[in-house]
């Protein structure tokens, strides 16, 4: 018989830590009322969590609560279980809706979330990871970092006219970037004659460049060491498929996720979309990299403290009292 992890039975069973209070029928009734506009599975997951403290149920609760506040026509996106879904751009969640989500999550999971902790939550994945860390008592994840083109240029060994990233965001779980095909790229003069098409090899290059940025920004290494920008090179790729012809005017949405990282190799999966259309996927590609002493590294790291130009959620403004007019 497979033991149910949610039902600690014998004396040897280890209940999950985290929830000190017992879950009474009154609590269940209040929970049902709080979640009355959420799916039944959200309620079930919340009940399981409150009974057992098992954090495995938390993602379903969080997604269920977000879904309840998202306009019905956008809810289908949440079904895709894409952690890169952006709360504002993809789901239409504004800062006040975020507060509604927070109040309900706090109520249902019996936790407290501070305003300043919310500032860096930009994607569904950010929210899930953040709540998971809070519940398990783990240190909070490094916030997603946003890099405008100036900052990318400052960090990267690759430079224009061969840089194919206009902006990027890097978190511990991966990186996203954008590149707009301007039509002025030198290689489009010949690829093809009177018929400019972004070469698939350059799209693969763009994915690789995002991998380089991830290594330089996102990988934790040994203490006192950083990834050396002059040591990163492409070693190989597998399962490359192009699905869509990309032309001047198209905006490439480039994303990569690390699959394995073990000195000196880092392997990623990658995808490029244009809008909602798949443009290219790479099942995996691998970069090699080396380390150097942090003290001798290029001064690029100092740039990481450049403030983001605009508040992403506006929650920071509320926290500072400069948001809604009182």
């Amino acid at each position, binding site marked *: 018989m497979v033991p149910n992890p949610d039902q600690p039975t014998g004396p040897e069973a280890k209940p999950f830590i985290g929830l000190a209070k017992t879950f009474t029928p009154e609590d269940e009734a209040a929970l049902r009322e709080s979640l009355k506009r959420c799916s039944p599975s959200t309620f079930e997951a919340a009940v399981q969590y409150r009974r057992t403290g098992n954090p495995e149920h938390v993602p379903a609760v969080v997604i269920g609560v977000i879904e309840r506040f998202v*306009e019905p026509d956008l809810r289908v996106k949440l079904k895709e279980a894409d952690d890169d879904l952006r709360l504002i751009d993809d789901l239409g969640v504004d800062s*006040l809706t975020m507060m*509604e989500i927070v*109040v309900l999550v*706090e109520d249902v999971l019996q936790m407290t979330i501070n305003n300043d902790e919310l500032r860096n939550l930009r994607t569904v994945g950010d929210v899930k990871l953040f709540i998971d860390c809070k519940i398990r008592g783990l240190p909070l994840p490094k916030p997603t970092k946003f890099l405008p083109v100036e900052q990318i240029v400052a960090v990267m060994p690759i430079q224009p006219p061969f840089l194919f990233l206009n902006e990027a965001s890097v978190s511990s779980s991966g990186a996203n970037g954008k590149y707009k095909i301007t039509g002025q790229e030198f290689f489009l003069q010949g690829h093809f004659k009177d018929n400019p098409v972004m070469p698939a090899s350059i799209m693969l290059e763009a994915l690789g460049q995002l991998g380089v940025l991830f290594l330089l920004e996102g990988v934790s290494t040994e203490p006192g060491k950083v990834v050396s920008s002059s040591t990163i090179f492409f070693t190989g790729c597998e399962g490359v498929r192009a699905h869509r012809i990309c032309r001047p005017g198209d905006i490439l949405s480039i994303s990569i996720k690390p699959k394995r990282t073990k000195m000196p190799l880092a392997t990623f999966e990658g995808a490029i979309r244009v809008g909602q259309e798949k443009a290219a996927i790479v099942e995996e590609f691998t970069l090699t990299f080396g380390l150097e002493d942090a003290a001798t590294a290029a001064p690029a790291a100092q740039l990481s403290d450049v403030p983001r130009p605009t508040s992403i959620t506006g929650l920071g403004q509320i926290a500072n009292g400069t948001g809604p007019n009182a």
Partner: protein
Amino acid sequence: MPKVYITGLGFITSIGNDRASVTTSLRELRHGFERYAPFAGPEVPVKVAAPVRGFQMDSTDPEDWTFPKGYTIRREVLRGMSPNAVYSWCAMQQAIADARLTPAEISNPQTGLYAASGGSPFLMGHMLQRMHQQGVMKCSPLGIIASISGTLNFNLVAHFGIKGSSCGFSSACASSSHALGFAYDDLALGRQKRMFIVGAEDGNPDAILPFASMRALSLQTDPNLASRPFDTGRDGFVGTGGAVVLVLETEDEVARRGVTPYCEVAGWGQASDGHNVAISHPDGHGLAAAIKLALAATNTPAEAVDYVNAHATSTPIGDTSEARALKSIFRTPATRPAISSTKAITGHGLSLAGAMESGFCALAIRDGFMPGSANITRLDPECEGLNIIRSTLPAQPRVVLNNVSGFGGANVSLVFRQA
């Protein structure tokens, strides 16, 4: 100074949720009263109210609310709304359609919005209860937006993209007449080209019943007898809610857009009793002064007034006070105007009253009738000599006066003229 006209109206009231049904109710004196279900319990001495029909908003959760067909409000809009904001949102839609305004004509620096409601005691009570019981951080993030008395202007200005003047007015039952008066000033002074005036109230138990302990509400159990301004048997007002929206525009805008206005807003006057926080001056001094100022401001001789829509709410003291004020102004019996209180069929809308009854005056002038003062069986002797009309007259008034009086002795009188 440019002339100012009423070019659009929207109604969500106890006597109808559109202009046509409101006009019919006014002409035929059909009332909006009923034995109000939330007052059924033995602990509530008040039994009659004039609720708005077609809306279901008795839950504290706006996502439970239902509206008549044709009105849909997105969740992100609804979450900051009180019931009276919902009523006003619907009345705005009507007024905009009625005035045939384009989105650009609604959202520009020359178009403003003045509003008046008492807020939402219902949602305020719920929010404070939740705060005390469950904690300060457990309130709805927009609870304050939905419940304080600026809820109308907060919601409407944001959702309709108003870019001109905006403000809420708070003088109790005189509020929306103050809003209309100051909107007139902004238009006459050239500060704005177009103004929305909004009056609204929840009209639910939490909005109405706090008036019971001051003995202001009628304890009548018969819906046909509860509201009877100027009758000797009157014993208090009957509460109502809803929303009325008026669109005011300058003569230049009326000419440019080629629309036919309902009537002209000729001007207004206001004066205060300086007497009591809740009770009108017994001789109606403040109201008489407001009427005098309104007539003077519009160069209107008292004899020129054809119809007065009285404030008379059906309270013993208030109606007497107004009757004395009217007698002090309209001294020549032969030229005394027709007078009625339409609260005999609508009930008293508090902050909504001035806007609602100004809307009625506009209908009366354009459609050519003067609504009667219903439910008078024995006229109060104090009213002897006043021409209080018991039934609707099919005659078109050219000059109309609308009175309101609010707590603190605030009085406003508005003058409307045939366009």
